[in-house]
């Protein structure tokens, strides 16, 4: 068995044949996060992305959202150049076959040359598309469990993300980082809930931030404060990391509790901008509900297999596996439309310093992913050990399973159980 209770065979990360099977059985079946409704507000709005290795177009057609494989039914060209925009038709650049936004073939030049009943109906549709709280999901498989059951207890993380926005109004804004690394897609998914890594991987940025000028008080803040505060938080003591919550679901999703105690970074603790924001939430929902929402302290969430997000700074990452040892990650920021404008500036500053392509936090993660891939391509040692906290996992009543401590590797073991379910079904 390649996947055992507390260890995983290296070929799961390094064997191209296993990668091909993953694209078919995991990325070809699971619900994948594709984006957010704010990216396709009006009829004809579209953006291109990938589902695993399949190029797709996500488009608003009247009241619904459709997802098409971005490939002409004639000779195979992508009908839509990569990017986003608004259109009535997708016209193939090769021979001018055109499709409406629903994917139906509309016009074929030199039509008399084809046998009429042999012409394809249109672009191949991605069979299942659903949304949850404004987030767009699709599955390449026509059959399977519905989205709600797939998400299970991980719905709480999306609820937290959306409930924090006054009026529930969120929009993708501020540009998209697209970064790549020479490593397997799972290396990122296995890193974002790992509370034992910042002290080592991010040691340099933590050390420098500790010696940086102290952040200013309200009214005398510096542009550098968000960066310095966040990097200092990465250096939280071991006891803090051990104490945070760590939950996983049967589908491999996972989410961690908050490790922040910095009043400038965490909402609801007396910062002037946050006070204004909290007032907005109270006006809308009443004090008890607003406080309940702000007390939810979920930090990173993984939606297995392709998404990682965190609601407090409204960052969402989608991973695109390119090859067994090559991955591309798109990082989106979200604006709360009805919150004070300064909060989005914090989001942008946070995105640059933590998730950006030139970040001195992210680049150390990428370096380590590449070193892992290097190590795992060696056949001299077979096993990857994921036993931190093994044997002490706690069953929760809502179907989730909690790590014995915040640094338990339970989230990798849960991902690997889900991996095995997909791969052997």
């Amino acid at each position, binding site marked *: 068995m390649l996947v055992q209770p507390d260890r995983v065979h290296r070929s799961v990360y390094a064997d191209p044949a296993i990668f091909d099977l993953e694209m078919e059985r995991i990325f070809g079946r699971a619900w994948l996060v594709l984006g957010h409704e704010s990216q396709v507000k009006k009829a004809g709005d579209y953006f291109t992305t990938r589902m695993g290795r399949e190029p797709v177009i996500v488009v608003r057609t009247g009241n619904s959202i459709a997802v098409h494989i971005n490939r002409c039914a004639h000779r195979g060209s992508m009908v839509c150049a990569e990017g986003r925009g608004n259109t009535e038709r997708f016209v193939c650049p090769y021979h001018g076959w055109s499709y409406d936004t629903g994917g139906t073939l509309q016009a074929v030049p030199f039509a008399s040359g084809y046998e009429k009943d042999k012409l394809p109906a249109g672009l191949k549709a991605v069979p299942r598309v659903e949304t949850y709280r404004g987030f767009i999901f699709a599955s390449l498989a026509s059959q399977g469990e519905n989205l709600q059951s797939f998400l299970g207890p991980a719905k709480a993380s999306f609820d937290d993300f959306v409930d924090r926005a006054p009026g529930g109004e969120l929009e993708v*804004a*501020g*540009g998209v*980082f*697209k*970064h*790549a*690394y*020479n490593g397997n897609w799972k290396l990122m998914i296995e890193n974002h809930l790992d509370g034992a890594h910042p002290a*080592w*991987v991010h*040691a*340099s*940025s933590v*050390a*420098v*931030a500790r*010696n*940086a*000028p102290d952040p200013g008080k309200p009214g005398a803040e*510096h*542009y*550098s404060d968000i*960066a*310095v505060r966040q990097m200092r938080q990465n250096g939280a003591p071991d006891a803090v990391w051990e104490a945070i919550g760590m939950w996983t679901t049967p589908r491999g999703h996972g989410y961690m509790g908050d490790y922040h105690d910095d009043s400038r970074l965490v909402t609801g603790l007396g910062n002037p901008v946050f006070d204004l924001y909290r007032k907005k939430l109270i006006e809308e929902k009443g004090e008890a509900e607003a406080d309940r929402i702000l007390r939810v302290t979920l930090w990173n969430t993984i939606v297995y297999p392709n998404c990682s997000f965190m609601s407090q700074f409204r960052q969402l990452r989608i991973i695109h596996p390119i090859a067994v040892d090559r991955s*591309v990650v798109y990082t989106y*920021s979200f604006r709360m439309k009805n919150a004070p404008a300064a909060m*989005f*500036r914090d989001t*942008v*500053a946070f*995105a*640059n*310093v933590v998730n*950006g*392509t*030139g*970040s*001195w936090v*992210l*680049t*150390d993660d*990428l*370096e*380590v992913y*590449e*070193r892992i891939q290097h190590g795992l391509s060696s056949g001299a040692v077979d096993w990857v050990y994921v036993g931190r906290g093994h044997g002490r996992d706690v069953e929760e009543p809502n179907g989730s399973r909690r790590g014995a401590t915040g640094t338990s590797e339970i989230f990798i073991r849960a991902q690997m159980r889900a991996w095995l379910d997909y791969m052997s079904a």
Partner: protein
Amino acid sequence: MSPEQFLYYEARLLDTQQLEAWLELFTDDATYWVPLEKDQREPFETSSIIHDDRTLLELRVKQARHPRAHARLPLARTVHQVSNVMFEEQNNELKVHSTLQVVEFRNDKQRVYGALVEHRLRGTNGSFKIAHKRVDLVSSEGELDGIAILF
């Protein structure tokens, strides 16, 4: 020193890994900006590959020297090739446009970048200080491996 000579000198400091001396070229109120988007108008509502004030730029240089700065240990070897230098005076500063090609080598991987660069220079004692540097990578909107060098 002419503006061209100054830009060559700046590039030489980066290529010889004299990061601290390079940092000294910047004024205390300087900004160093590598936008994410083509024609990006501002750095506060849209993300940037790098947007540092003088404090963050100094921290960035210090981080690069830390013994556990994994992505910068060792520092990449680079060549910064500056050309097409044009300049005009503007509000007591010199606005300098140039093009930049960078070759980076690290971990058996060679990478090439091209960029349009804008400097705003302030003259002091026959030399210059950089008040603002903007580097528009032609690949800024593409799928890029992590960037751990300075332009």
